[in-house]
Structures are given as C-alpha cells and as structure tokens.
C-alpha cells in the first residue's frame, strides 16, 4: 500500500514536471484561414442563348439611348410641327411601299409627300428626338431597308404611328407589329380624315408616344444580347417548376381508379404578363364517368394558376402552351 502510494505520487510528479517543461513549447492549434468562394447558380440558357447578331447593326451607345427617351416625353408638345415631319418619313421608307400608303397619307397629311424623297438620310438625324425607344430608333434607320419585306402587313398604320413607334421597323417578329398597329390605328385614323392641320398631328404624336414607349419587344437589329431573344427556350428546370405549379393547382377528381379516366389535354394562350388570353381550349378529354368533370377540373386548375410567372424574355416560347394532364404518378392503374 505504501509503496503503491509513493510510486503513484512519484510518477505523477514526473508527469507534471514533464508537462511544465514541454507543453509551453508545443505548437498551437491555429485553424488555417480558408477563403470562402462565392457561388452563384445561374441558368445555362442565360449564357448560351444569345441573339444572333447582324452585321448591319450599328454599335449601341447606351447613353445616347437614354437621353432621347426622356426628350420624347417632353418634346411632343412644344416642337410638334418640326419633329413630326421627320418621323413620318422614317417610317415610310422602312415600311414597305409608299405606293399602297401613298394615297391615304398624302391627302390628309401634306408632310407625307415631301418626305418620300429623303427617307433614308433624314431618318438618321430625326429619329433621336421623337423615338420613344431610346436606342432602337437611331439604328433602325440604318437597317430599315432590309426589314421591309416582313413589315409589309402594317402598311397603312405605319404612317400614323411612324412617329411614335419606330418599332415597326424591326425585323424579327412578324406577329407583334400587327397587333400594335391595330391599336394605334384606331385612334389615329379618324383624326386623319378630319383634319390635316399640324396641331392635330401633334396631338396624335402625344398620344402615341406612351404606347410606343411600352413596347420593348420589337427591338431593332442588335449585335446580340441576352434578352428579347424570340427563340429563347424554356429550360428543363423552368419547365419542371411550371409542372410542379400546375400539379399544385390541379385538384383531381377523386373517384377515378385509373389515370386514363382523367387524361385531358388543354391548350392555353398567355399574354406577356403571364395572364390567360382567352378561354383555355380543351384539345382532348377522356371518355366515361369523368368526361365532363375532368376537363372542368383542368380548366379550373389553369385559371387558378394564373397569372403565370414565367421569364419574359422567353415569351416567344410560352405564349402558347399545350398541357397534358394525365396523373400517371397518382393513379398508375
């Protein structure tokens, strides 16, 4: 017992002594600093989905673009007469043929006639003040010539709108221009017929400018960019997000025992803001007990999910969607 105790005390003392001697010289445990790396998740389409550039497109100066835009809003009232003439010409040149338009425009607006001759040149200078869309207007002028073919449809409207909406000039989208044209025309047409006075024209321009400014879709030729590419496709993850959303909105008729009893195909058209445009159209409906109820539940789902929050730059891809509701996951039978 005694010996054990002494041995123990002796050994402990040695241990403490060793500690006093060696521990201070031990390496300290300093955690090494690791630099954090910021990681962003981006969609591959943002990188790869580029607009095709056109050689004819002038270089865009963003600064320039901004200024004109501001002016536009202010300008209309004061310098109505002066600015108006120029714009008209611009449009005309691009706008296919003066022939068809000529008759109509000429009578009401004296300006129209003088313009024809100087179309290409003048536009360049004039564009900047009137154009609602900053960058686009100036460039269009240069490009104008090529696009003509596509734009033929909106011949008549062009005249009136020309000042306001340089947009028609753009090439890419055939569907768009017509729409605007229609809207713009309505107000402008009547006035033409009535008077040809410059004051009235000024008024016209004022009205039209706001509409022109909202149009961002009809872009003039560019050297390429990541937005407003009409061919941009919805990516797989965007599609699966939409699918998940639809599944959340769809309250399936509950009595069915097989998914085929509910299989419904619906086609919807969407506006650019994601709202439904018109009635959902049932393309295919099931037969049997749920022939009426299943399509109704699908229409309810489509309405319930609206408005759809989809990437605006891909509107061209999702303006019309055909959805097949077939709950194979829920009712495999």
């Amino acid at each position: 017992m005694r010996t054990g105790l002494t041995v123990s005390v002796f050994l402990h003392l040695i241990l403490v002594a060793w500690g006093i001697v060696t521990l201070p010289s031990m390496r300290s445990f300093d955690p090494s600093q690791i630099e954090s790396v910021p990681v962003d998740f981006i969609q591959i389409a943002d990188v790869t989905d580029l607009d095709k550039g056109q050689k004819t497109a002038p270089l865009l100066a963003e600064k320039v673009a901004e200024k004109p835009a501001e002016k536009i809003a202010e300008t209309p009232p004061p310098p109505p007469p002066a600015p108006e003439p120029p714009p008209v010409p611009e449009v005309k040149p691009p706008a296919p043929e003066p022939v068809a338009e000529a008759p109509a425009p000429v009578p009401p607006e004296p300006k129209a006639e003088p313009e024809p001759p100087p179309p290409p040149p003048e536009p360049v200078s004039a564009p900047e003040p009137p154009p609602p869309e900053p960058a686009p207007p100036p460039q269009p002028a240069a490009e104008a010539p090529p696009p003509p073919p596509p734009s033929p449809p909106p011949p008549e409207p062009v005249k009136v709108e020309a000042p306001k909406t340089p947009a028609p000039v753009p090439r890419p989208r055939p569907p768009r221009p017509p729409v605007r044209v229609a809207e713009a025309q309505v107000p402008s047409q009547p006035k033409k017929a009535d008077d040809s006075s410059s004051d009235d024209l000024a008024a016209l321009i004022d009205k039209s400018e706001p509409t022109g400014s909202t149009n961002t879709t009809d872009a003039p030729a560019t050297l390429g960019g990541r937005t407003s590419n009409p061919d941009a496709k919805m990516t797989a993850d965007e599609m699966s997000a939409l699918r998940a959303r639809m599944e959340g909105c769809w309250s399936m008729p509950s009595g069915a025992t097989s998914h085929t009893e509910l299989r419904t195909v619906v086609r919807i058209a969407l506006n650019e803001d994601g709202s439904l445009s018109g009635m959902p159209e049932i393309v295919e409906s099931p037969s049997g007990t749920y022939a009426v109820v299943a399509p109704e539940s699908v229409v309810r789902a489509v309405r319930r999910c609206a408005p759809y929050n989809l990437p605006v730059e891909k509107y061209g891809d999702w303006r019309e969607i055909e959805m097949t509701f077939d709950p194979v996951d829920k009712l495999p039978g």
Partner: protein
Amino acid sequence: MAAAFISVPVPPTAMGRSVRRLVAACGALLLLALGAVPASAVLKLDVTGGTVQPLPIAIPAFAAGGADSQLGADVAQVITADLKRSGLFAPLDPSTFSAAASAPDQTPRFGDWRILNAQALVTGAIARQADGRLRAEFRLWDIFAGQQMTGQQFFTSPDNWRRVAHIIADAIYERLTGEKGYFDTRIVFVDETGPKDKRVKRLAIMDQDGANVRYLTRGNDLVLTPRFNPSSQEVTYMSYGGDQPRVYLLNIETGQRELVGNFPGMTFAPRFSPDGQKVIMSLQQDGNANIYAMDLRSRTTTRLTNDASIDTSPSYAPDSSRIVFESDRGGTQQLYVMGADGSNPQRISFGKGSYSTPVWSPRGDLIAFTRFSGGQFAIGVMKPDGSGERILTEGFHNEGPTWSPNGRVLMFFRDTPGANGGPQLWSIDLTGYNEFRVPAPSFASDPAWSPLIN
C-alpha cells in the same frame, strides 16, 4: 430548336435514307438561318400528378322570406355538413361572406367570391307555396368560369326539408365529381343501450348524417347484422327470436316481420342479392356451415357450398355473377370468390392474419373486408382477384364494413375497450384520409347503408 427539327416535313418518297437526312438537315439549317420558329411550335407540358385537395365551395344561407330565414340557414348548413363529410369539399366559413347571398335568379358577383378563393358557389332560395308546400331551388356556379353549372327546384312538405337538402347536396356532388352522391340515404344499425354485460339491442334506422332516428324493434330479442334490400324499403337481419338465431325480413314502412325459410338449424349472415329478389345466407348443420340462396318469390332454396368447413358472410357482385364469402377450409378464415351457382371457388386473400366480412362494392371494382392480424382489427379493400390490398384503418376493434351506394365511402363500427367502452359508427373514404364519427343516439354497431332513396 428541337421542335423545328421535328416539324421539318420529309417527303415520303423512295429517296435513300441519306438523301432524306440531307434534306432534313438542310431544312433545319434553313430554319436556323431564318432564326424563326414555326408558329405551330407550341410548348408542351406533361402534368403527371395533382392534388387531392378538397374543392373550396361557398354555400351561403338560402334566401327565405321572413319567418323562414332560419330554415334557409338550416338547409345551407345541412348541405355544408354533407359535402364537408365527403372529404372532397372544403366549405368556406359563412362568416367570411361579405357579399349578401344573392337570390338564385341573379348572377352572383364572381369577383367577390374569387377573393375568398372559392371555386364553386351554391345559391338557393326557399319559399312557401300557397298550398303549404315548400319550394326549394338552388344553382351551382363555377366561379372561375362565371357560369352556372346546374340548377334545380323541388317541392316538398315543410317537415321534409332535410331530405331536400340532402338531394341538393347529391346534385352538387354529382355535378362536381362526376359520380353519384350518397347523401339522400339512410343507415340501419343496431342501437345498444344498458351496461356492457346486459346490453339491450334494438334495430334502428336514421339518415346517413345521424338525424331522424327511428327504432324498428323493441329490444326484447337480440338482433344482429341488419342488411338493406337494394331495391325496396326492406331489411333482413338475424335475431334470436326463440332458442336459436334465425334470419328475418322486416318491412320498414309497415313493421311487418317474417321468417326467411324453414330450416332445421340456425341461419345467419343474410344479405340481399343486387336485384333484391334473393337472400343469401349461411345455414349451420352438424358443426358445418354452408351457403344457401333463397328466392323470395318462389321460396326455393339452393345450396351453393358443400364442404366440411364454416362458409359464411356471402356477398354478391353487383352483376350477380359471382359471390365472395369467407371460409376456414384452408385452416384460417380467408376470402373466396365463386360463381353465383357455387362453382369454382378461388381463394383471394393471402395477406397476414385472417379475413372476414367481405362486401362487394356497388361499383364492382373492390371488395371491403375486416382483417384480424397481430391483435388488431383493420378495415381494408382489395380487388376481386385479390390484388391491390389496402388497409384503410386499423385499431383495437374495427369491424363490419358497409358501402355507400356510390362505392366511395365505407361505414363500419369501432369498439373501444374498458367497462365504459362501446361500439360507435365511423365512416372512412377510399383514400383513408377522411374518417368521421357518425353521430348516433347511443352505442351503435352493425351499420348497413341503404341505396339512394328514390
């Protein structure tokens, strides 16, 4: 651009494959060069699932003149309760209805209801006619579409208002689910009162929501397993009228009672055939029980099984072509299906435990049963070939399922242990999620669901 590739038409001529490919490629390149997608390229999306959320529906009180305003609220309340119990609808809280209930002959302001997230709206009115009858009318609206989906009106005696409410609930259910409703139905059951060791059991009948209880027997004799005749207001049940149990027929309207068949031994587990013209049941002799069918018109009996085991709880398929029953011929109680003439019996239950009280669904697609396994009683369903077995609820004691007339809901009784415990009626739908207690005046067992009342 995949869509563009697909849409390139390739002439179906005798051109070589390579040539065709070349053409296709050129076409695709052309499209690429134009940078335009054909207008026909529609984005396609496959939605392969959905929710089983109940449908939000608004049911404001029915419009009624003066003294009947309470009745208008009651009618709406009965409809609300029916739809809610089905599990398929989520009636909205009436206190959130800011818009005054519009009369059924006016188009509602759908915007007001859309704000509440309602997807369907029921408007209605009741009014007393000059002859004292009650006129009830309703319209069902699709709120998103802003259209009327259905509308009907009924005339009835004022004390029959609950039935009218049930009929309206059925119409709404059918219009929105595509299936027949089951609210205008009744339940016959065994009412149990008194202490556990000395229960008084009376045959009783009530609406499927527990209202309008009536007693059909006085409680002198023990009664068990009542079953509804699918085609008339008639019930068959087992009763210890004398020394041993016998199967009886009872007319609900007249109270007239009659013994089924004149057999030497005890008879039990009776059930009507789908056309109501036959009663099928078990007859016990010499320790065996076999299945017999008796024609109620000709009073002739047919023996369907003949073996040294206990065969019982027979139930016809809705087309009367087959019969499901339970038998211990394999050692334990299991389910078998045979032809209506007793031919070719096939065992269909192969899960763990023993199976009993099979009932064929009125839709024909499923068979409900009670399963005893691991000390627990469960209610489940399987397909008539024995596949697709699903347990809907499980516990201390669940037994005796009966189908709603549309084959979507099962009612059964659940017993609780202890001196104060007793059986109660419960319902559960085929999803297994919507389980509700069915109100009854006291303890209740052996429910049987009536067909839709016509």
